[in-house]
């Protein structure tokens, strides 16, 4: 470590459920260089200061969606957030808001995984196809209808940003709704009626109060708020018109 090495304070939310009654803050002094991300900062802590610190990470380049954390209270991917932007002030790192903490910065994902399964995030073909029929063809316009919603990496920043998910964890939430929408508007898919049951339900889109913060924090340029609000219109149309033109999704 050279004489003029810069040192930043990183305040980390700690919680080991087997010994801590409640989460607490711990401050570490971390030497850093201008090219270091917050993720590299917490990796430094684990490697040199406290090996018991737990957090998820993998790709280091905003593709895997593992390293989401609250950084100074804002849901962020720690791999693309840089320590230099906070220095000389202290940077505060906490587990993603609105989720149960498993250990330190690691959150429990069960609730979200259940939601992800429930939206059937795969193409449900309209009719069975044989290999001999060849591949599906799509126009650029048909691709454009769903493309942006397919960029989701399940990092859950949008859930940490959503005050309504915070108030009611049974709300299907931004990412799952965006992905649901991605399949519903895909020209190859025939599963819309089944998925609309979820959209129309009490866990569905009407929990949203159009805050829009989900789309703001998304690191992949997805606009989940748009998917949610398009489906409010779809759901309301289905609610009032289902007796005139029943096409599934109604109970």
């Amino acid at each position: 470590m050279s004489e003029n090495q810069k040192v930043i304070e990183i305040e980390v939310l700690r919680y080991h459920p087997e010994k801590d009654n409640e989460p607490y803050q711990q401050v570490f002094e971390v030497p850093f260089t201008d090219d270091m991300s917050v993720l590299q900062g917490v990796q430094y802590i684990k490697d040199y200061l406290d090996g018991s610190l737990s957090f998820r990470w993998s790709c280091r380049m905003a593709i895997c969606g593992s390293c989401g954390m609250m950084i100074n209270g804002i849901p962020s991917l720690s791999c693309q957030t840089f320590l230099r932007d906070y220095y000389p002030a202290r940077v505060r790192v906490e587990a993603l808001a609105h989720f149960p903490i498993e250990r330190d910065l690691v959150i429990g994902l069960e609730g979200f995984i259940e939601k992800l399964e429930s939206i059937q995030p795969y193409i449900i073909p309209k009719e069975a196809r044989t290999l001999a029929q060849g591949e599906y063809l799509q126009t650029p316009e048909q691709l454009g209808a769903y493309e942006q919603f397919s960029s989701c990496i399940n990092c859950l920043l949008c859930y940490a940003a959503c005050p309504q998910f915070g108030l009611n964890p049974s709300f299907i939430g931004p990412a799952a709704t965006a992905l649901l929408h991605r399949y519903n508007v895909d020209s190859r898919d025939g599963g819309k009626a089944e998925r609309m049951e979820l959209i129309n339900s009490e866990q569905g889109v009407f929990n949203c109060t159009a805050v829009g913060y989900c789309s703001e924090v998304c690191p992949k340029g997805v606009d989940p708020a748009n998917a949610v609000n398009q489906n409010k219109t779809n759901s309301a149309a289905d609610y009032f018109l289902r007796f005139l033109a029943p096409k599934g999704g109604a109970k």
Partner: protein
Amino acid sequence: MKPGLKRSNAPIFWALFGAGGMLSALLGPMLVFITGLAIPLGILLPADTMSYPKMLAFAQNFIGKSFILAIIALFLWHAAHRIFHSLHDIGIHAGTGAKLLCYGLAMLGTVLAAYALLVIGF
């Protein structure tokens, strides 16, 4: 698909909220200007624009009635929905009670307005 999904009845309230929001955004400022500024201060509009005979005639006309009912009822439903959700946002989860109070007042206002518009005659 998860069993036991219950269809939400939110579209009814959301539609009334949306209609009221649209109407209040388009007409609200103009109505505030006419009834709150232009008429009392006597600017831009003829002095007797909102005189009793004119307003009575307006309220007795079918189109006038519809306009008054839409303004009062939809503004109320919009406000009720907004207040109900704001209560939830600030941590008051009063549930059915708050729902009944908010939407009940909007319903009461709607019924009273409709009743008044009917008894005022055609």
